[in-house]
């Protein structure tokens, strides 16, 4: 994919140049290419080559906002999209805080988010990686089958221009391997998965992804339903990443100004264990979702949300920042060209501790290592803080991993869980998601089973 970001910026510029007196206009233009290879039993099951492009236009006049978008960069359609956005603003209601982002003088952190080499990886190599991953996962244990073994890459470019003086573009690419496993023992089947992410195929750790996927499935064989009780849990890095995603969703300015954050009015309070420092850092290129710019075209930056347990700040879009009377934090997020910017975390991470998961487990007398969770979207309410999720994992007794358990839930509240964190592991794991994994020990969680 030749660098077309200047071309995308030129398209955005042309839209902004059509702004009429009294209007603020923003054009967000993006283009992406991706490949997905899925292998099953040594054959390519599918090979998907996907290409998307589109434009989203926001027009603001007298405090009213209208938006429109289209999945094409056809000039005739773009003209229609602008006209539609202009028409739509007549139906929005006046909001004194509405407005586009304005340049805030924060410089873009230099980081390398694009690999030319990834572009030149031949198709045959991508297929071979997925096949090799399947072979390794199956070879790890005779009880293991592979459900699907995948290679995925994506190349994204975006440009934002506004009448307020924002004019930026950026591009990122990356790839990952993922594998889903099934382990059989008689009539019983258990499942596992493994990942590895990188900016380039050489960064992918294929052995680790295969081994973890095989281990996760086989070690659940024989799992039983545990008795209900209160327990200490160790969240596996992948589970922690999902948990952090929910916590991050409660710490944005949009939720605060609209009365939906359970941490509103808690700035400066101790909301988490002193062991917890939670940062949103899209400027770390190791994070799969690292980026130069946020969804409104401001420089992405490192923000410390919780500092040794104390709530330090909320992430902000230009709108939420203006409404709260604070500076923006470069956290405008948008779901591609069709979305409007909101405030959200870009690349969350808990600052890691020092010990490995094995060392942590060795220090626990009675607990559960939670290897997978299920139903976070249905059992967790980020407004009330009620937390309840299905889980499967391994019991920990006197410092060693013991019998596997499944078909139980763990429950608490988000507020209590943050305070009950007893240790952060040193085992940071980069995942194809907006949060980074690390082992996390949480006391006093209710386990519901038989």
């Amino acid at each position, binding site marked *: 994919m030749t660098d077309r970001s200047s071309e995308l910026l030129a398209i955005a510029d042309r839209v902004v140049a059509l702004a009429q007196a009294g209007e603020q206009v923003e054009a967000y233009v993006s283009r992406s290419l991706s490949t997905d290879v899925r292998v099953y039993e040594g054959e390519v099951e599918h090979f998907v080559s*996907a290409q998307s492009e589109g434009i989203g236009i926001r027009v603001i006049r007298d405090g009213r906002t209208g938006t429109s978008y289209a999945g094409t960069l056809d000039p005739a359609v773009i003209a229609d999209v602008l006209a539609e956005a202009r028409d*739509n603003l007549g139906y929005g209601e006046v909001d004194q805080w509405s407005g586009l982002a304005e340049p805030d003088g924060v410089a873009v952190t230099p980081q390398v988010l694009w690999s030319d080499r990834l572009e030149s990886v031949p198709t045959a190599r991508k297929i071979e990686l997925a096949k090799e991953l399947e072979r390794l996962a199956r070879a790890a244990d005779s009880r293991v089958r592979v459900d699907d073994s995948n290679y995925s890459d994506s190349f994204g470019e975006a440009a934002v221009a506004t009448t307020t003086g924002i004019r930026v573009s950026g591009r990122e690419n990356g790839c990952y391997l993922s594998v889903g496993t099934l382990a059989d023992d008689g009539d019983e089947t258990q499942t596992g998965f493994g990942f590895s992410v990188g900016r380039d195929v050489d960064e992918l750790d294929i052995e680790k992804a295969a081994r973890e996927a095989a281990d996760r499935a086989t070690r659940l064989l024989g799992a039983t339903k545990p008795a209900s009780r209160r327990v200490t849990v160790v969240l596996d890095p992948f589970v922690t990443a999902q948990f952090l995603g929910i916590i991050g969703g409660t710490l944005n300015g949009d939720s605060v100004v609209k009365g939906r954050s359970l941490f509103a009015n808690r700035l400066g309070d101790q909301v988490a264990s002193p062991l917890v420092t939670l940062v949103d850092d899209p400027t770390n290129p190791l994070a799969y979702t690292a980026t130069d710019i946020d969804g409104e075209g401001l420089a992405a930056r490192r923000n410390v949300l919780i500092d040794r347990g104390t709530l330090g700040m909320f992430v902000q879009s230009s709108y939420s920042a203006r409404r709260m009377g604070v500076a923006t934090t470069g956290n405008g997020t948008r779901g591609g060209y069709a979305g409007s910017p909101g405030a959200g975390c870009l690349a969350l991470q808990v600052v890691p501790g020092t010990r490995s998961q094995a060392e942590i487990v060795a220090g626990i007398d009675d607990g559960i290592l939670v290897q997978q969770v299920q139903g976070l979207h249905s059992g967790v309410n980020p407004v009330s803080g009620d937390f309840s999720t299905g889980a499967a994992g391994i019991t920990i007794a006197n410092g060693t991993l013991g019998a596997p358990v499944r078909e139980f*839930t763990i429950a608490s509240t988000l507020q209590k869980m943050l305070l009950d964190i007893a240790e952060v592991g040193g085992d940071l794991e980069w995942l194809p998601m907006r949060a980074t994994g690390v082992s996390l020990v949480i006391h006093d969680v209710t386990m519901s089973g038989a």
Partner: protein
Amino acid sequence: MIDNDVLERVLSAALRTGADFAEIFASDWRGTGVGLDDGRIEQLSTGRNRGAGIRVISGETTGFAHTADLTESGLLAAARVAADAARQGGGGTRVVALTAQPSRIVSPIDVDPSTVAKASKVELLRRVDDAARSTGGAITQVSAGYSDGRTLIVVANSDGLVARDERIRTLLRVSAVANGDTGMQTGFDSVGHTMGFELFDKVQVEDVARTAATRALTKLKARPAPSGSMPVVIKAGSGGVLFHEACGHGLEADLVAKGASVYRGKVGELVASPLVTLVDDGTMTHEWGAIAIDDEGHPSQYNVLIENGVLTDYMWDYLRARKEGRRQSGNGRRQSYKDLPMVRMTNTYVLNGDEAPADIIRDTESGVYVAHLGGGSVNTATGDFVFGMTEAYLIENGEITEPLREGNLIGNGPQVLRDIDRLGNDFAMGNPGTCGKDGQGVPVGDGQPTLRVKALTIGGTAS
């Protein structure tokens, strides 16, 4: 949208590398969304997405590419990419001649939403905001969304099939926050149908708003949900998601074929309580999962999956049906032209039993009454599934008593199906849903009468 002679030439080009099968799925979507939050209409947004996905199958391999360029040259370029991806080394020329399928209408539309004034759509949300806030003084926030979409579809394949369809969906969703001594609570409700703007002649938006607000207010007085295994009664029209998760996904032939379903090899066996007859029905007029044709061009069907507890069949798409030499069941669906089709549910529901719902509750000494569910998920290989309760109450001595806070329930599909011991006669469909599988979301419906499960694990915090 694309003429048949162009479709024929593109399909021929897609077969040039010796493929067994080629297919074009093209769609042209236009929609409107209005969002209300914090007391004001935040914005009205309109959008359009159109394009075509081309699938080429050679042996076990599927190649797929998509394009937003619906001109013949754009389609040919995508066909070449897909054909190369599926290349088997063969070659030659195959001519494709298309035969139009008779068009069919499952959900007749009275008022195409694209002909309705934007101001009328905005007005609905103003009414929602007023109604939700006036439900109780503790309601502190309301957000609501209106959306409509009209999609034109054409599917053509190298077997000569060509089918066209128009799909219209209209949706309203309301979310309310109530604030009290115990903190904030939320309530949600929605209504969505394969129907035009006449939906709002049949449904009063104030009712949807008040339901959402009442759910939030009720939970202000709620106690933590219990922890452990107990009988659960599920209100009619709220628990279809239980079947969607407990067995629906496990009856998708693609998962069965990979040995990733606890229901593999179980056709003809008793897999559920004899009370249970489960149907997947794409023809259910105006329901959220209704489709005239699936996304591979085949007519939707009424498929009985479980009859009186006995597993009768799985659901099928083109690929699985072809491999196993049988007919597809109209369950090949995809999120958009950018996605490959898979086996998916449509409207999945349990037929009526014959008991009065009040009797089921009265005969339950102690347990939980679930009046609204918030979604769920399943591991089809183990059968373990969860679903969230967003409105629930204790049952004590055969009566519904105190409201409970939110939590997940967990169970094992085959076990839970066997543990259904009471079935009501008050069938109702539930809220419109979006079913996720392998990263793709498709609209689905579900429904059931009031029923009881002898034992389910409630994932609360109270002992």
